Protein backbone atom coordinates (compact mmCIF):
# COMPACT_ATOMS: atom_id res chain seq x y z
CA UNK A 1 0.00 0.00 0.00
CA UNK A 2 2.74 2.46 0.93
CA UNK A 3 4.37 1.92 -2.50
CA UNK A 4 1.29 3.17 -4.25
CA UNK A 5 0.70 6.16 -2.04
CA UNK A 6 4.30 7.36 -2.33
CA UNK A 7 4.05 6.96 -6.07
CA UNK A 8 0.84 8.93 -6.18
CA UNK A 9 2.30 11.61 -3.91
CA UNK A 10 5.26 11.95 -6.23
CA UNK A 11 2.97 12.20 -9.24
CA UNK A 12 0.99 14.89 -7.50
CA UNK A 13 4.14 16.82 -6.68
CA UNK A 14 5.00 16.88 -10.33
CA UNK A 15 1.94 18.96 -11.05
CA UNK A 16 2.26 22.66 -10.39
CA UNK A 17 -0.94 24.42 -9.25
CA UNK A 18 -1.09 26.35 -12.52
CA UNK A 19 -1.17 23.14 -14.51
CA UNK A 20 -3.72 21.59 -12.19
CA UNK A 21 -6.02 24.58 -12.63
CA UNK A 22 -5.51 24.53 -16.38
CA UNK A 23 -6.51 20.87 -16.55
CA UNK A 24 -9.53 21.56 -14.38
CA UNK A 25 -10.52 24.37 -16.72
CA UNK A 26 -10.27 22.05 -19.69
CA UNK A 27 -12.62 19.58 -18.04
CA UNK A 28 -14.98 22.40 -17.19
CA UNK A 29 -15.10 23.36 -20.85
CA UNK A 30 -15.78 19.76 -21.80
CA UNK A 31 -18.62 19.64 -19.30
CA UNK A 32 -20.07 22.78 -20.83
CA UNK A 33 -19.74 21.27 -24.30
CA UNK A 34 -21.43 18.06 -23.18
CA UNK A 35 -24.25 20.04 -21.63
CA UNK A 36 -24.61 22.08 -24.80
CA UNK A 37 -24.86 18.97 -26.95
CA UNK A 38 -27.40 17.48 -24.56
CA UNK A 39 -29.43 20.68 -24.71
CA UNK A 40 -29.27 20.70 -28.51
CA UNK A 41 -30.52 17.15 -28.52
CA UNK A 42 -33.51 18.20 -26.42
CA UNK A 43 -34.28 21.37 -28.36
CA UNK A 44 -34.05 19.75 -31.78
CA UNK A 45 -34.66 16.05 -31.29
CA UNK A 46 -35.43 15.44 -34.96
CA UNK A 47 -31.88 16.26 -36.07
CA UNK A 48 -29.14 13.63 -35.99
CA UNK A 49 -26.69 14.45 -33.25
CA UNK A 50 -24.79 11.17 -33.19
CA UNK A 51 -21.67 12.49 -34.85
CA UNK A 52 -21.48 15.47 -32.54
CA UNK A 53 -22.08 13.27 -29.52
CA UNK A 54 -19.35 10.89 -30.65
CA UNK A 55 -17.03 13.81 -31.15
CA UNK A 56 -17.57 15.08 -27.65
CA UNK A 57 -17.19 11.60 -26.17
CA UNK A 58 -13.90 11.12 -27.96
CA UNK A 59 -12.79 14.56 -26.74
CA UNK A 60 -13.39 13.38 -23.18
CA UNK A 61 -11.29 10.29 -23.73
CA UNK A 62 -8.50 12.25 -25.40
CA UNK A 63 -8.53 14.88 -22.64
CA UNK A 64 -8.49 12.23 -19.93
CA UNK A 65 -5.64 10.31 -21.51
CA UNK A 66 -3.70 13.51 -22.14
CA UNK A 67 -4.27 14.80 -18.60
CA UNK A 68 -3.17 11.51 -17.14
CA UNK A 69 -0.07 11.49 -19.28
CA UNK A 70 0.79 15.01 -18.16
CA UNK A 71 0.23 14.35 -14.50
CA UNK A 72 2.15 11.10 -14.18
CA UNK A 73 5.90 10.93 -14.39
CA UNK A 74 7.82 12.51 -17.21
CA UNK A 75 8.72 9.11 -18.63
CA UNK A 76 5.07 8.12 -18.82
CA UNK A 77 4.34 11.34 -20.70
CA UNK A 78 7.13 10.61 -23.15
CA UNK A 79 5.84 7.10 -23.71
CA UNK A 80 2.43 8.60 -24.39
CA UNK A 81 3.76 10.99 -27.03
CA UNK A 82 5.87 8.24 -28.54
CA UNK A 83 2.77 6.10 -28.77
CA UNK A 84 0.90 8.93 -30.50
CA UNK A 85 3.74 9.19 -33.02
CA UNK A 86 3.63 5.43 -33.52
CA UNK A 87 -0.11 5.42 -34.20
CA UNK A 88 0.19 8.38 -36.54
CA UNK A 89 3.09 6.90 -38.52
CA UNK A 90 1.33 3.56 -38.76
CA UNK A 91 -1.83 5.25 -40.04
CA UNK A 92 0.16 7.26 -42.56
CA UNK A 93 2.11 4.27 -43.88
CA UNK A 94 -1.10 2.29 -44.18
CA UNK A 95 -2.70 5.01 -46.31
CA UNK A 96 0.06 5.70 -48.80
CA UNK A 97 1.29 3.33 -51.51
CA UNK A 98 4.20 1.28 -50.26
CA UNK A 99 6.51 -1.26 -51.84
CA UNK A 100 6.95 -4.80 -50.65
CA UNK A 101 10.70 -4.38 -51.04
CA UNK A 102 10.69 -1.63 -48.42
CA UNK A 103 9.33 -3.71 -45.56
CA UNK A 104 12.55 -3.79 -43.59
CA UNK A 105 13.13 -0.10 -44.28
CA UNK A 106 9.77 0.65 -42.70
CA UNK A 107 10.81 -1.26 -39.62
CA UNK A 108 13.89 0.91 -39.36
CA UNK A 109 11.69 3.96 -39.74
CA UNK A 110 9.57 2.80 -36.82
CA UNK A 111 12.75 2.37 -34.82
CA UNK A 112 13.34 6.09 -35.17
CA UNK A 113 10.46 6.64 -32.76
CA UNK A 114 11.92 5.18 -29.57
CA UNK A 115 15.27 6.71 -30.45
CA UNK A 116 13.86 10.18 -31.01
CA UNK A 117 12.07 10.05 -27.70
CA UNK A 118 15.17 8.70 -26.01
CA UNK A 119 17.05 11.83 -27.07
CA UNK A 120 14.20 13.84 -25.57
CA UNK A 121 14.34 11.88 -22.34
CA UNK A 122 18.07 12.65 -22.20
CA UNK A 123 17.28 16.29 -22.99
CA UNK A 124 19.85 16.03 -25.75
CA UNK A 125 18.69 18.93 -27.89
CA UNK A 126 21.40 18.61 -30.53
CA UNK A 127 20.47 15.01 -31.31
CA UNK A 128 16.71 15.57 -31.03
CA UNK A 129 16.81 18.33 -33.61
CA UNK A 130 18.95 16.57 -36.23
CA UNK A 131 18.20 12.88 -35.77
CA UNK A 132 15.33 12.73 -38.24
CA UNK A 133 16.19 15.53 -40.67
CA UNK A 134 19.81 14.39 -40.98
CA UNK A 135 20.34 10.81 -39.87
CA UNK A 136 17.02 9.22 -40.72
CA UNK A 137 16.89 11.23 -43.92
CA UNK A 138 20.32 10.02 -45.03
CA UNK A 139 20.33 6.49 -43.71
CA UNK A 140 16.91 5.21 -44.72
CA UNK A 141 17.51 5.72 -48.45
CA UNK A 142 20.85 4.01 -47.94
CA UNK A 143 19.02 0.97 -46.60
CA UNK A 144 16.71 1.16 -49.59
CA UNK A 145 19.64 1.23 -51.96
CA UNK A 146 21.12 -1.84 -50.33
CA UNK A 147 17.89 -3.68 -51.10
CA UNK A 148 18.24 -2.47 -54.66
CA UNK A 149 14.68 -1.97 -55.87
CA UNK A 150 14.88 1.18 -57.99
CA UNK A 151 11.39 1.17 -59.44
CA UNK A 152 9.44 3.72 -57.44
CA UNK A 153 12.54 4.57 -55.42
CA UNK A 154 12.07 8.32 -55.39
CA UNK A 155 8.44 8.14 -54.35
CA UNK A 156 9.20 5.62 -51.63
CA UNK A 157 12.12 7.59 -50.19
CA UNK A 158 10.26 10.89 -50.42
CA UNK A 159 7.00 9.75 -48.89
CA UNK A 160 8.71 7.88 -46.09
CA UNK A 161 10.72 10.88 -45.03
CA UNK A 162 7.73 13.16 -45.26
CA UNK A 163 5.79 10.84 -43.02
CA UNK A 164 8.57 10.65 -40.45
CA UNK A 165 8.84 14.41 -40.36
CA UNK A 166 5.12 14.99 -40.00
CA UNK A 167 4.34 12.28 -37.47
CA UNK A 168 7.51 11.80 -35.46
CA UNK A 169 9.66 14.89 -35.78
CA UNK A 170 6.79 17.36 -35.44
CA UNK A 171 4.96 15.62 -32.62
CA UNK A 172 8.19 15.10 -30.70
CA UNK A 173 8.50 18.87 -30.37
CA UNK A 174 5.58 18.74 -27.95
CA UNK A 175 7.49 16.20 -25.91
CA UNK A 176 10.63 18.30 -25.85
CA UNK A 177 8.62 21.24 -24.55
CA UNK A 178 7.55 18.97 -21.75
CA UNK A 179 11.05 18.14 -20.60
CA UNK A 180 12.36 21.69 -20.67
CA UNK A 181 13.81 22.72 -17.32
CA UNK A 182 11.27 24.58 -15.25
CA UNK A 183 13.47 27.63 -14.80
CA UNK A 184 12.79 28.43 -18.45
CA UNK A 185 9.11 28.73 -17.56
CA UNK A 186 8.35 29.66 -13.94
CA UNK A 187 4.63 29.45 -14.78
CA UNK A 188 4.13 25.72 -14.82
CA UNK A 189 7.36 24.62 -16.49
CA UNK A 190 7.25 22.23 -19.40
CA UNK A 191 3.68 21.07 -18.78
CA UNK A 192 2.50 24.69 -18.79
CA UNK A 193 3.96 25.21 -22.25
CA UNK A 194 2.51 21.95 -23.55
CA UNK A 195 -0.94 22.84 -22.25
CA UNK A 196 -0.72 26.27 -23.82
CA UNK A 197 0.28 24.84 -27.19
CA UNK A 198 -2.10 21.88 -27.30
CA UNK A 199 -5.09 23.67 -25.88
CA UNK A 200 -4.73 26.64 -28.22
CA UNK A 201 -4.17 24.37 -31.22
CA UNK A 202 -7.35 22.39 -30.56
CA UNK A 203 -9.26 25.51 -29.58
CA UNK A 204 -8.19 27.13 -32.83
CA UNK A 205 -9.53 24.17 -34.82
CA UNK A 206 -12.89 24.34 -33.09
CA UNK A 207 -13.04 28.13 -33.27
CA UNK A 208 -12.31 28.21 -37.00
CA UNK A 209 -14.95 25.57 -37.54
CA UNK A 210 -17.58 27.41 -35.50
CA UNK A 211 -16.85 30.79 -37.05
CA UNK A 212 -16.95 29.14 -40.44
CA UNK A 213 -20.32 27.57 -39.70
CA UNK A 214 -21.84 30.85 -38.50
CA UNK A 215 -20.35 33.43 -40.85
CA UNK A 216 -18.62 31.48 -43.56
CA UNK A 217 -19.17 32.73 -47.05
CA UNK A 218 -16.01 33.06 -49.09
CA UNK A 219 -14.15 29.84 -49.63
CA UNK A 220 -10.49 30.26 -48.94
CA UNK A 221 -8.97 27.16 -50.58
CA UNK A 222 -11.80 25.35 -52.39
CA UNK A 223 -9.66 22.97 -54.42
CA UNK A 224 -8.27 21.36 -51.31
CA UNK A 225 -10.72 21.96 -48.51
CA UNK A 226 -14.12 23.19 -49.67
CA UNK A 227 -15.35 23.57 -46.10
CA UNK A 228 -12.86 26.26 -45.12
CA UNK A 229 -13.84 29.90 -45.43
CA UNK A 230 -12.06 33.22 -45.03
CA UNK A 231 -14.52 34.19 -42.31
CA UNK A 232 -13.82 30.97 -40.44
CA UNK A 233 -10.10 31.42 -40.72
CA UNK A 234 -10.07 35.06 -39.64
CA UNK A 235 -12.66 34.61 -36.91
CA UNK A 236 -10.80 31.66 -35.50
CA UNK A 237 -7.48 33.43 -35.79
CA UNK A 238 -8.72 36.48 -33.90
CA UNK A 239 -10.27 34.34 -31.18
CA UNK A 240 -7.06 32.37 -30.85
CA UNK A 241 -5.05 35.59 -30.65
CA UNK A 242 -7.26 36.85 -27.87
CA UNK A 243 -7.05 33.61 -25.96
CA UNK A 244 -3.29 33.38 -26.42
CA UNK A 245 -2.89 36.89 -25.07
CA UNK A 246 -5.10 36.05 -22.07
CA UNK A 247 -3.56 32.68 -21.23
CA UNK A 248 0.11 33.41 -21.85
CA UNK A 249 0.82 35.16 -18.54
CA UNK A 250 -0.64 32.18 -16.63
CA UNK A 251 1.09 29.35 -18.42
CA UNK A 252 4.14 30.81 -20.10
CA UNK A 253 6.88 33.41 -19.69
CA UNK A 254 5.79 35.09 -22.94
CA UNK A 255 5.18 38.83 -22.85
CA UNK A 256 2.02 40.36 -24.33
CA UNK A 257 3.55 40.99 -27.74
CA UNK A 258 5.19 37.59 -27.81
CA UNK A 259 1.88 35.97 -26.94
CA UNK A 260 0.23 37.64 -29.91
CA UNK A 261 2.94 36.32 -32.20
CA UNK A 262 2.40 32.88 -30.70
CA UNK A 263 -1.32 33.27 -31.35
CA UNK A 264 -0.72 34.08 -35.01
CA UNK A 265 1.70 31.19 -35.34
CA UNK A 266 -0.76 28.75 -33.81
CA UNK A 267 -3.79 30.14 -35.63
CA UNK A 268 -2.20 30.14 -39.06
CA UNK A 269 -0.07 27.08 -38.47
CA UNK A 270 -3.06 25.06 -37.34
CA UNK A 271 -4.99 26.04 -40.44
CA UNK A 272 -2.11 25.16 -42.74
CA UNK A 273 -1.51 21.81 -41.03
CA UNK A 274 -5.17 20.88 -41.42
CA UNK A 275 -5.20 21.86 -45.06
CA UNK A 276 -1.96 20.04 -45.87
CA UNK A 277 -3.33 16.78 -44.52
CA UNK A 278 -6.55 17.46 -46.43
CA UNK A 279 -4.48 17.79 -49.58
CA UNK A 280 -2.82 14.48 -48.81
CA UNK A 281 -6.20 12.81 -48.34
CA UNK A 282 -7.53 14.28 -51.57
CA UNK A 283 -4.52 12.98 -53.40
CA UNK A 284 -5.18 9.53 -51.98
CA UNK A 285 -8.91 9.74 -52.65
CA UNK A 286 -10.05 9.29 -49.05
CA UNK A 287 -12.22 11.27 -46.68
CA UNK A 288 -10.91 10.34 -43.25
CA UNK A 289 -7.42 9.16 -42.42
CA UNK A 290 -8.83 6.32 -40.34
CA UNK A 291 -11.44 5.26 -37.80
CA UNK A 292 -9.44 5.33 -34.59
CA UNK A 293 -11.24 8.34 -33.10
CA UNK A 294 -15.04 8.09 -33.43
CA UNK A 295 -16.50 11.37 -34.64
CA UNK A 296 -13.09 12.71 -35.63
CA UNK A 297 -11.66 10.21 -38.07
CA UNK A 298 -8.15 8.94 -37.71
CA UNK A 299 -5.32 10.14 -35.56
CA UNK A 300 -3.81 12.11 -38.45
CA UNK A 301 -7.06 14.05 -38.68
CA UNK A 302 -6.63 15.05 -35.06
CA UNK A 303 -2.94 15.94 -35.00
CA UNK A 304 -2.74 17.60 -38.41
CA UNK A 305 -2.80 21.10 -36.94
CA UNK A 306 -0.45 20.09 -34.14
CA UNK A 307 2.09 18.81 -36.65
CA UNK A 308 2.51 22.41 -37.78
CA UNK A 309 1.94 24.35 -34.58
CA UNK A 310 4.23 22.22 -32.41
CA UNK A 311 7.53 22.89 -34.19
CA UNK A 312 6.59 26.48 -34.98
CA UNK A 313 5.65 27.30 -31.41
CA UNK A 314 8.59 25.37 -30.00
CA UNK A 315 11.12 27.26 -32.07
CA UNK A 316 9.47 30.59 -31.38
CA UNK A 317 9.73 29.85 -27.68
CA UNK A 318 13.28 28.56 -28.07
CA UNK A 319 14.30 31.73 -29.88
CA UNK A 320 12.69 34.04 -27.33
CA UNK A 321 13.24 32.19 -24.09
CA UNK A 322 15.46 29.23 -24.80
CA UNK A 323 18.86 28.68 -23.20
CA UNK A 324 21.75 30.47 -24.87
CA UNK A 325 23.31 27.44 -26.50
CA UNK A 326 24.07 28.71 -29.94
CA UNK A 327 26.01 31.90 -29.40
CA UNK A 328 29.25 30.43 -30.60
CA UNK A 329 30.42 33.71 -32.02
CA UNK A 330 30.11 35.68 -28.81
CA UNK A 331 33.02 33.93 -27.15
Amino acid at each position, binding site marked *: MTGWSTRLAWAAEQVSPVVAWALAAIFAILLAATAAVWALGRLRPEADWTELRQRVRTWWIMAAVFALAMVLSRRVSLVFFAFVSFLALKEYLSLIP*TRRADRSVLLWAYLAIPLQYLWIDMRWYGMFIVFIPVYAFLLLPMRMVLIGETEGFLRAAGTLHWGLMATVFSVSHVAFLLVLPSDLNPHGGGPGLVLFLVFLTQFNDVAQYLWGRSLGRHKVIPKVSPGKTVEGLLGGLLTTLLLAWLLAPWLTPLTGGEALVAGVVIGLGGFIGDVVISALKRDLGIKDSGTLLPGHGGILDRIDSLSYTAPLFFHLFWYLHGPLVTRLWDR
Partner: protein
Amino acid sequence: MTHYELLQRLFFWLVVRPVVLVGLGLNVRHRERLPAAGPAIVVANHNSHLDTMVLMTLLPSHLLPRVHPVAAADYFLRNRLLAWFALRIVGIIPIERRPAVAPPAAAPAEPSAAPTPGAPRPDVLAAVAAALERGDVVILFPEGSRGEPERLAELKSGVARLVERFPAVPVIPIFLHGLGKALPRGSALPVPFFCDVFVGEPVPWRGDRKIYVEELRGRMQELAAEGHLAEWL
Protein backbone atom coordinates in the same frame (compact mmCIF):
# COMPACT_ATOMS: atom_id res chain seq x y z
CA MET B 1 -12.50 -24.00 -17.32
CA THR B 2 -9.96 -26.55 -18.46
CA HIS B 3 -6.22 -25.84 -18.49
CA TYR B 4 -6.33 -25.42 -22.23
CA GLU B 5 -9.19 -22.97 -22.18
CA LEU B 6 -7.34 -20.89 -19.60
CA LEU B 7 -4.15 -20.94 -21.64
CA GLN B 8 -6.12 -20.08 -24.72
CA ARG B 9 -7.71 -17.09 -23.04
CA LEU B 10 -4.36 -15.92 -21.66
CA PHE B 11 -2.79 -16.20 -25.09
CA PHE B 12 -5.70 -14.32 -26.61
CA TRP B 13 -5.78 -11.46 -24.12
CA LEU B 14 -2.03 -11.08 -23.58
CA VAL B 15 -0.73 -11.72 -27.09
CA VAL B 16 -3.36 -11.77 -29.81
CA ARG B 17 -5.40 -8.76 -28.79
CA PRO B 18 -2.47 -6.40 -28.15
CA VAL B 19 -0.76 -7.45 -31.37
CA VAL B 20 -3.89 -7.04 -33.45
CA LEU B 21 -5.33 -3.92 -31.84
CA VAL B 22 -2.12 -2.01 -31.06
CA GLY B 23 0.61 -3.48 -33.25
CA LEU B 24 -1.66 -3.64 -36.26
CA GLY B 25 -4.90 -1.77 -35.79
CA LEU B 26 -8.27 -2.59 -37.34
CA ASN B 27 -10.57 -0.49 -39.50
CA VAL B 28 -13.79 -2.49 -39.54
CA ARG B 29 -16.68 -1.83 -41.94
CA HIS B 30 -20.07 -3.35 -41.14
CA ARG B 31 -19.07 -4.77 -37.77
CA GLU B 32 -22.74 -5.47 -37.04
CA ARG B 33 -22.72 -8.24 -39.65
CA LEU B 34 -20.32 -10.37 -37.63
CA PRO B 35 -21.97 -13.46 -36.10
CA ALA B 36 -22.82 -13.02 -32.43
CA ALA B 37 -23.15 -16.77 -31.86
CA GLY B 38 -22.61 -20.08 -33.59
CA PRO B 39 -23.18 -22.01 -35.69
CA ALA B 40 -21.63 -19.90 -38.41
CA ILE B 41 -19.13 -20.27 -41.22
CA VAL B 42 -16.76 -17.35 -41.60
CA VAL B 43 -15.07 -17.20 -44.97
CA ALA B 44 -12.07 -14.94 -45.49
CA ASN B 45 -9.26 -14.32 -47.95
CA HIS B 46 -5.88 -15.55 -46.85
CA ASN B 47 -2.69 -13.53 -47.01
CA SER B 48 -0.94 -14.05 -43.75
CA HIS B 49 -0.80 -16.04 -40.54
CA LEU B 50 -2.14 -12.88 -38.97
CA ASP B 51 -5.52 -13.46 -40.67
CA THR B 52 -6.57 -15.96 -38.02
CA MET B 53 -5.47 -13.66 -35.19
CA VAL B 54 -7.51 -10.81 -36.62
CA LEU B 55 -10.61 -12.96 -37.07
CA MET B 56 -10.29 -14.28 -33.52
CA THR B 57 -10.17 -10.70 -32.27
CA LEU B 58 -13.21 -9.66 -34.30
CA LEU B 59 -15.50 -12.40 -33.06
CA PRO B 60 -17.03 -11.97 -29.60
CA SER B 61 -14.50 -13.04 -26.98
CA HIS B 62 -16.92 -15.31 -25.16
CA LEU B 63 -17.03 -17.44 -28.31
CA LEU B 64 -13.28 -17.96 -28.24
CA PRO B 65 -13.20 -21.67 -27.26
CA ARG B 66 -15.85 -22.34 -29.91
CA VAL B 67 -14.06 -20.74 -32.84
CA HIS B 68 -12.18 -23.15 -35.09
CA PRO B 69 -10.00 -22.08 -37.99
CA VAL B 70 -9.75 -24.83 -40.58
CA ALA B 71 -6.04 -25.19 -41.30
CA ALA B 72 -3.64 -27.36 -43.27
CA ALA B 73 -2.49 -30.42 -41.36
CA ASP B 74 0.75 -30.74 -43.28
CA TYR B 75 1.79 -27.26 -42.21
CA PHE B 76 0.47 -26.96 -38.67
CA LEU B 77 1.02 -30.49 -37.46
CA ARG B 78 4.54 -30.80 -38.77
CA ASN B 79 6.17 -30.83 -35.35
CA ARG B 80 4.92 -31.63 -31.87
CA LEU B 81 5.18 -28.15 -30.39
CA LEU B 82 3.45 -26.43 -33.29
CA ALA B 83 0.81 -29.15 -33.39
CA TRP B 84 0.08 -28.75 -29.68
CA PHE B 85 -0.13 -25.00 -30.04
CA ALA B 86 -2.31 -25.11 -33.15
CA LEU B 87 -4.71 -27.69 -31.79
CA ARG B 88 -4.92 -26.70 -28.14
CA ILE B 89 -4.37 -22.95 -28.13
CA VAL B 90 -5.60 -21.79 -31.50
CA GLY B 91 -8.18 -24.58 -31.74
CA ILE B 92 -7.73 -25.45 -35.40
CA ILE B 93 -9.49 -28.23 -37.26
CA PRO B 94 -6.70 -29.77 -39.32
CA ILE B 95 -7.33 -30.87 -42.89
CA GLU B 96 -5.13 -32.93 -45.13
CA ARG B 97 -4.41 -31.22 -48.42
CA ARG B 98 -3.42 -32.93 -51.59
CA PRO B 99 0.10 -31.67 -52.46
CA ALA B 100 -1.35 -29.29 -55.05
CA VAL B 101 0.33 -26.13 -53.79
CA ALA B 102 3.82 -26.90 -52.53
CA PRO B 103 5.12 -24.57 -49.79
CA PRO B 104 8.17 -22.65 -51.06
CA ALA B 105 10.54 -24.21 -48.52
CA ALA B 106 9.70 -27.74 -49.62
CA ALA B 107 11.94 -29.99 -51.72
CA PRO B 108 11.49 -29.81 -55.54
CA ALA B 109 7.91 -30.82 -56.31
CA GLU B 110 6.93 -34.20 -57.70
CA PRO B 111 5.90 -34.26 -61.35
CA SER B 112 2.22 -34.44 -60.45
CA ALA B 113 2.25 -31.18 -58.50
CA ALA B 114 0.26 -29.15 -61.01
CA PRO B 115 -2.24 -27.04 -59.04
CA THR B 116 -5.49 -28.96 -58.85
CA PRO B 117 -8.32 -27.80 -56.65
CA GLY B 118 -7.69 -29.98 -53.59
CA ALA B 119 -10.99 -31.55 -52.65
CA PRO B 120 -10.83 -32.38 -48.95
CA ARG B 121 -11.43 -36.05 -48.26
CA PRO B 122 -14.81 -36.99 -46.75
CA ASP B 123 -13.51 -37.63 -43.22
CA VAL B 124 -12.08 -34.13 -43.10
CA LEU B 125 -15.46 -32.55 -43.61
CA ALA B 126 -16.69 -34.72 -40.77
CA ALA B 127 -14.61 -32.83 -38.21
CA VAL B 128 -15.84 -29.49 -39.51
CA ALA B 129 -19.41 -30.76 -39.71
CA ALA B 130 -19.23 -31.97 -36.13
CA ALA B 131 -18.11 -28.53 -35.02
CA LEU B 132 -21.03 -26.90 -36.81
CA GLU B 133 -23.46 -29.41 -35.35
CA ARG B 134 -22.19 -28.43 -31.89
CA GLY B 135 -23.04 -24.82 -32.72
CA ASP B 136 -19.45 -23.64 -33.09
CA VAL B 137 -18.05 -21.09 -35.49
CA VAL B 138 -15.78 -22.33 -38.24
CA ILE B 139 -13.29 -20.15 -40.14
CA LEU B 140 -12.46 -21.15 -43.70
CA PHE B 141 -9.92 -19.79 -46.13
CA PRO B 142 -11.19 -21.00 -49.47
CA GLU B 143 -8.13 -19.77 -51.36
CA GLY B 144 -6.33 -22.64 -49.76
CA SER B 145 -3.02 -21.06 -48.99
CA ARG B 146 -1.59 -17.63 -48.39
CA GLY B 147 -0.71 -17.01 -52.02
CA GLU B 148 0.53 -13.72 -53.40
CA PRO B 149 0.06 -10.91 -50.88
CA GLU B 150 -3.08 -8.87 -51.51
CA ARG B 151 -4.21 -10.86 -54.54
CA LEU B 152 -7.40 -12.93 -54.46
CA ALA B 153 -6.72 -16.41 -55.82
CA GLU B 154 -9.16 -19.01 -57.17
CA LEU B 155 -11.37 -20.41 -54.45
CA LYS B 156 -11.42 -24.11 -53.73
CA SER B 157 -14.66 -26.03 -53.79
CA GLY B 158 -14.54 -27.47 -50.28
CA VAL B 159 -16.50 -24.57 -48.86
CA ALA B 160 -19.36 -25.33 -51.25
CA ARG B 161 -19.50 -28.96 -50.12
CA LEU B 162 -19.78 -27.79 -46.57
CA VAL B 163 -22.52 -25.26 -47.21
CA GLU B 164 -24.42 -27.88 -49.18
CA ARG B 165 -24.55 -30.02 -46.04
CA PHE B 166 -25.51 -27.10 -43.82
CA PRO B 167 -27.61 -24.72 -45.90
CA ALA B 168 -29.12 -23.10 -42.82
CA VAL B 169 -25.81 -22.06 -41.29
CA PRO B 170 -24.99 -18.44 -42.23
CA VAL B 171 -21.86 -18.01 -44.33
CA ILE B 172 -20.28 -14.61 -43.63
CA PRO B 173 -17.69 -13.41 -46.16
CA ILE B 174 -14.96 -11.20 -44.77
CA PHE B 175 -12.35 -9.42 -46.83
CA LEU B 176 -9.12 -8.53 -45.07
CA HIS B 177 -6.64 -6.08 -46.49
CA GLY B 178 -3.25 -5.10 -45.16
CA LEU B 179 -2.11 -8.27 -43.44
CA GLY B 180 -0.25 -9.35 -46.54
CA LYS B 181 1.74 -6.16 -46.08
CA ALA B 182 2.23 -6.67 -42.36
CA LEU B 183 3.42 -10.29 -42.50
CA PRO B 184 3.38 -11.82 -45.96
CA ARG B 185 4.10 -15.44 -46.69
CA GLY B 186 7.81 -16.17 -46.53
CA SER B 187 8.59 -13.39 -44.13
CA ALA B 188 9.34 -13.52 -40.42
CA LEU B 189 9.43 -9.75 -39.87
CA PRO B 190 6.09 -8.23 -38.95
CA VAL B 191 5.70 -4.56 -39.92
CA PRO B 192 2.93 -2.50 -38.27
CA PHE B 193 0.14 -1.77 -40.74
CA PHE B 194 -3.53 -1.08 -40.25
CA CYS B 195 -5.80 -3.86 -41.41
CA ASP B 196 -9.02 -3.03 -43.24
CA VAL B 197 -11.82 -5.47 -42.56
CA PHE B 198 -14.92 -5.57 -44.76
CA VAL B 199 -17.70 -7.80 -43.45
CA GLY B 200 -20.29 -8.90 -45.98
CA GLU B 201 -23.88 -10.07 -45.83
CA PRO B 202 -24.41 -13.83 -45.50
CA VAL B 203 -24.14 -15.74 -48.78
CA PRO B 204 -27.13 -18.09 -49.06
CA TRP B 205 -26.98 -21.58 -50.57
CA ARG B 206 -28.71 -21.74 -53.92
CA GLY B 207 -28.28 -25.36 -54.83
CA ASP B 208 -25.23 -25.46 -57.08
CA ARG B 209 -21.65 -25.78 -55.89
CA LYS B 210 -19.92 -24.10 -58.82
CA ILE B 211 -22.28 -21.18 -58.77
CA TYR B 212 -21.82 -20.88 -55.04
CA VAL B 213 -18.06 -20.67 -55.31
CA GLU B 214 -18.38 -18.03 -58.00
CA GLU B 215 -20.88 -16.05 -56.02
CA LEU B 216 -18.60 -16.18 -53.01
CA ARG B 217 -15.64 -14.96 -55.03
CA GLY B 218 -17.80 -12.18 -56.50
CA ARG B 219 -18.82 -11.10 -53.01
CA MET B 220 -15.24 -10.98 -51.83
CA GLN B 221 -14.28 -8.84 -54.79
CA GLU B 222 -17.19 -6.52 -54.12
CA LEU B 223 -16.09 -6.17 -50.52
CA ALA B 224 -12.55 -5.46 -51.64
CA ALA B 225 -13.80 -2.71 -53.90
CA GLU B 226 -15.68 -1.03 -51.06
CA GLY B 227 -12.70 0.68 -49.58
CA HIS B 228 -9.85 2.71 -50.89
CA LEU B 229 -6.90 0.35 -50.56
CA ALA B 230 -3.38 1.76 -50.76
CA GLU B 231 -1.24 0.32 -53.54
CA TRP B 232 1.10 -2.47 -52.63
CA LEU B 233 3.83 -2.69 -55.23
